[in-house]
């Protein structure tokens, strides 16, 4: 079976890769591009651990084929903040102790960033609704929601 040649950008960098026709974007990112931030939780689009944005739209990378992203712009958690300069979402997640095992965290960060790009001042309910597709089995969610709300306040420049 011949592999498919794909050109795309990931976090602004041009990438090209060969993939199998049935290979999902999550596996391309992790196994071919060595970007292991996106995690495989369920592999069926239920848990959100593999969240990335595709042309600005939040998606589950386990439900996208690698072959489908030809010409597309992909953003992953690796493009958000650096070890020296964390994104406000990352800093507030740490400050609120809003993670334990951490498997869901990259997906939460990508999803929350996509929310704040669309709605910089979400209500608690809006945050909970938007993140309903990001499952966390450790925290009970409250700390995550509070961290996202306080990061949003900081990003808006509100004194909090």
């Amino acid at each position: 079976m011949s592999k498919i040649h794909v050109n795309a950008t990931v976090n602004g960098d041009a990438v090209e890769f060969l993939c199998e026709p049935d290979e999902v974007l999550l596996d391309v990112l992790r196994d071919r591009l060595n970007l292991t931030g996106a995690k495989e939780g369920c592999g069926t689009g239920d848990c959100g651990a593999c969240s990335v944005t595709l042309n600005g739209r939040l998606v589950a990378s386990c439900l996208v084929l690698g072959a489908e992203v030809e010409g597309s712009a992909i953003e992953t958690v690796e493009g958000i903040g650096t070890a020296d300069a964390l994104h406000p979402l990352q800093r507030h997640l740490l400050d609120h102790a809003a993670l334990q095992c951490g498997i869901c965290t990259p997906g939460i960060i990508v999803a929350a960033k996509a929310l704040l790009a669309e709605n910089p001042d979400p209500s608690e309910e809006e945050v909970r609704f938007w993140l309903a597709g990001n499952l966390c089995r450790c925290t009970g969610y409250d700390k995550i929601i509070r961290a996202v709300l306080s990061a949003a306040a900081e990003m808006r420049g509100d004194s909090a």
Partner: protein
Amino acid sequence: MRYVVAKDCPEAVALLNANNGARLLAGGTDLLVQLKQGAAKPNILIDIKKIDGFGNIAAEEGGFRIGATVSGAEIGAHIALKAAWPGVVEAVELIGSTQVQGRATMVGNLCNGSPAADSVPAMLAAGAVARVEGPGGARDVPVADLLKGPGRTALGSAELVSSVLLPKRGARAGDAYLRFIPRTEMDIAVASAGVNLELDAGGVVVAARVALGAVAPTAILVPEAAAALVGSRLEASALDACATACEAASNPIDDKRGTAEFRTRIAGVMATRAAKTAYTRAGGSL
């Protein structure tokens, strides 16, 4: 398995026609799960997302034509569409998480053939018409006529749905969709209802369509439930008759989500509540 990007609709139809075991790829939120689980083993995937026009929501004769690859997120963000058909849009927006909304399509929800598909009762209530493309050209088919059973549609093996038309609606008209699930969000309907009403200047229902989901092998229209609402201002007696008609039309299964008895009862409850919302949206006051 091969992966092919169709350049245009005739090419997609020709590929379907030439390949037994081909599957169309739009949003992929059902198909990729089936591939992973081995439930679908196509020899060729035909990606239809690059076909001109398939990704559009277009105004047409006072209504809206929604292309086969338009995602739920795009439908939810379309202000004029949401104003005209709030029930259809709220049904589409109930499908899955934010991540799923970014990919899943209304036409895919229809063609997947689930009896519990959220958008289908809303489309039935709206009188939506699918544009079916095949080797013989295009034909327009009411959505109601495409539903054949769990996972089955009336589409031929070389046919596809290129778009769905939501028709022009009257001035005093409104629709609504409601489903019952055991949790707050992100679940599959135990029973659901879509209702579309048109009122006269005095708030009397002059036209009604009532559809149910998850209580039969396909989503179903219930003309008797609609007839119970026509001529009323949704007085209690009309709503009771509507619920009774819904219960009579229900023929559900028992499964882990709900018993047949519960589904039957709740179908009428969903329909009457959706009717009240549709009535209010149509400008009526209860």
